């Protein structure tokens, strides 16, 4: 299977990851257990796109603004849609990062690094670059940990035995 076919066939992994992250964050008051005693806080805000199908059969639901229509998003989920793109706020150890993530490729855009840390006396120079790369590495590490946690659950019996029933119950209740 070539790269493009693989990306198409397995694009659901990214969509399920963001959908899992959104539901887990809603159910657990934004707290996500990363394993090893670490916790991250994740909020979905300002922009959420859900879709289902592909090509001519693609159906998309786009929600924007501070008070996104979460009721509509839940209706979309009930109709079989999954998160295709989301604006996230991540907090770990007092570092807050805001970013948009596309489910199909996990590409990141509009990422704002933690406030108040932007340096220093060499704007645009190597120290600025290295500090920002280091902050970005921390953020990527959290995202990778979240993704790894999702995979751990997704590939275990926990997915069918605990996770999906919890989501279904929550969706019915709302």
């Amino acid at each position, binding site marked *: 299977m070539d*790269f493009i076919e*693989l*990306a198409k066939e*397995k*694009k*659901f*992994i*990214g969509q*399920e*990851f963001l*959908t899992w992250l959104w*539901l887990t964050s809603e159910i657990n008051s934004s707290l996500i257990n990363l394993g090893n005693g670490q916790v991250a806080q994740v909020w979905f805000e300002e922009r959420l796109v859900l879709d289902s199908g592909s090509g001519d059969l693609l159906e998309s639901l786009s929600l924007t603004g501070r008070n996104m229509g979460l009721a509509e998003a839940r209706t979309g*989920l*009930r*109709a*079989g849609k*999954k998160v295709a793109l989301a604006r996230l706020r991540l907090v770990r150890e007092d570092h807050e990062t805001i970013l948009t993530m*596309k*489910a*199909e*490729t*996990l*590409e*990141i*855009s*509009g*990422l*704002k*690094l933690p406030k108040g840390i932007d340096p220093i006396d060499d*704007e*645009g*120079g*190597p120290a*600025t*670059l*290295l500090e*920002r*790369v280091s902050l*970005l*590495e921390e953020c*990527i590490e959290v995202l*990778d940990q979240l*993704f*790894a946690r999702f*995979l751990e659950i*997704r*590939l275990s019996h926990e*997915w*069918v035995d605990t996770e*999906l029933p919890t*989501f*279904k119950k929550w*969706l019915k209740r709302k």
Partner: protein
Amino acid sequence: MGLLKGAISLTRYKIMDSAKSFDAEEMAEKLKQNAFMDIEAIPEEKSVGWVEVNNMLSTEFDPTSFWFGQVMSWNLRIDKRSISASMLNKYLTMAEAEYVGRSGEVLKADEKKNMKAKVKQDLLRRVPVTTKTIEVCWLKNKNEIWLAGNSAKDQEIFEEKWSNTFHIGLVMKIPYLLAEDLLSGTSDPMALGNLKSSAFFGQGA
């Protein structure tokens, strides 16, 4: 905007041949060989090449400009002149009318082709160049490349320039490949490959 300042867009790539590495001098040589060529004074449509991360006008690539311990960084510079089809048609029509008025003859097909090429060259000399720079970051300890952008066009241009420069395969870290890396050695290798899409609600798991 990007790794140095402002909001960041990011595409992550995995280096396929992790054993291949270059020392500072080899890197400098490769970057220089594929450095950006200025088209400000010549009628070219496009130029793509590497420039220093802190200075888009410099292609010296002294190792201190790109080699920062475990991180290497430089910029991809893309210069373009855009001539729309309607602009080209307008000036071609004007040139044809001028020729017919002067000679009283209609242009033959090959003459029209030559005139079109000449008009385009003239326009290229007059249209200003637009410049875009995108940061590239090589994280040696992670075997990963970051491109501070995620438009499909920029990714394609970057991937081609990377390949011509380093002759090392790169693959975008799409979810499946990232999952393979994260699960490496910790999970049944077949489990991920056999994974099927799961419904969250309604149609059962």
